[in-house]
């Protein structure tokens, strides 16, 4: 019981920072549909509380929350009923499905959530060079299909 109280107090202490990170990431992901953001953030924080014993021991709880937010947003995106414009969400899903799992993870964090390379590398547990390589390949594969929503072009950044 005392462990539960301590765990709860630690979660309470971390809640402001984590919910802010989750909210920012979800808002950038669902920039075309704000109505889903609140549910996505609430779901992400519920999962964080559910697995808090693991999250609190994680090397980077913030990175864990970012990755979890990405997964929750993708789930909401695939459940087209959650979004107001199923056509856009369907287009995003089709575009992301063209990528491999690793490329998709990097692309979502880098281009859809606007995370920098360092944050993406820490969140995914990899190196920045790998993040850069995968991001480039993902961008070529997406062929500018997400340019209208996320501004991701096929051209290399200047």
């Amino acid at each position: 019981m005392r462990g539960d109280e301590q765990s709860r107090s630690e979660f309470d202490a971390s809640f402001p920072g984590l919910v802010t990170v989750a909210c920012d990431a979800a808002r950038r992901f669902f920039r075309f549909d704000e109505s889903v953001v609140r549910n996505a953030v609430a779901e992400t924080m519920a999962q964080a509380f559910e697995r808090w014993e693991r999250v609190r021991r994680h090397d980077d709880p913030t990175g864990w929350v970012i990755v979890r937010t990405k997964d929750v947003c993708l789930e909401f995106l695939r459940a087209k009923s959650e979004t107001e414009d199923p056509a856009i969400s369907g287009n995003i899903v089709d575009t992301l499905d063209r990528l491999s799992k690793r490329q998709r993870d990097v692309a979502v964090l880098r281009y859809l959530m606007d995370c920098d390379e360092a944050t993406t590398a820490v969140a995914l547990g990899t190196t920045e060079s790998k993040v850069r390589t995968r991001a480039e390949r993902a961008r070529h594969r997406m062929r500018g299909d997400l340019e209208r929503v996320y501004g991701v072009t096929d051209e290399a950044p200047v």
Partner: protein
Amino acid sequence: MTEHEHPDPWADVSLPPPFDAREIYEYATSVGAQRRGERRRRQVVLTISGLLVVALTGAGIGLTGGDGGETSIQVATQASIPRAPARSKETVPAPRRRGQESAPRKSAARPAPPRTSQCNGHAGVTSSSAARLTAFHSVRPLDNPHDTTTTAPVPETTTTTPPPPETTTTPPPPETTTTAPAPVTTPTTRRTTPPTRIGVSPETVLPQPAVPGSGPVSPSPSPSVRRRTRC
């Protein structure tokens, strides 16, 4: 302690207007706690079921003796090998089934005699049992030809086989011999002649019991022979 330091975790959160930190916090804690409980229950069920599987598997292995039941099968076959052949002449490889073997054990006198009969044959203790074995062993070839002919000879041989010793059985053989010479069927005469051997066998066959191959002896005749020889 820290709980007092952060009485309202959502107080310090500055989110854009549409978002309510308190609402998110309450949702996260309530739903998260519920899911956590379900997950713990699931883990408990999984661990208990896993322990049960391990315990039941161990108990099953322990009951079977650790060899997966092969030992019991081997014991059954070993115990039934001498008895099964004694029951039916036709089904020599009887030891396959347990149920058939276990039931006759109770009804067919005692299982020990057939074994001891072979051993005693050497020692010469029970000459009667030795005579028994040799007699039926010699009768065997007679029964098969009778079966091929007709039903009539079969009952005769069956009746004659138990009596072979001396008293009641001796009459039938002579009858058959008398009928045998009858011009009807010569093969019957050939077959009936062996019964004369039966009459002779008890005396001459005494040394033969040592033959181990004579194991397959019908169970029914053996007890009758014992009684007579004992008497």
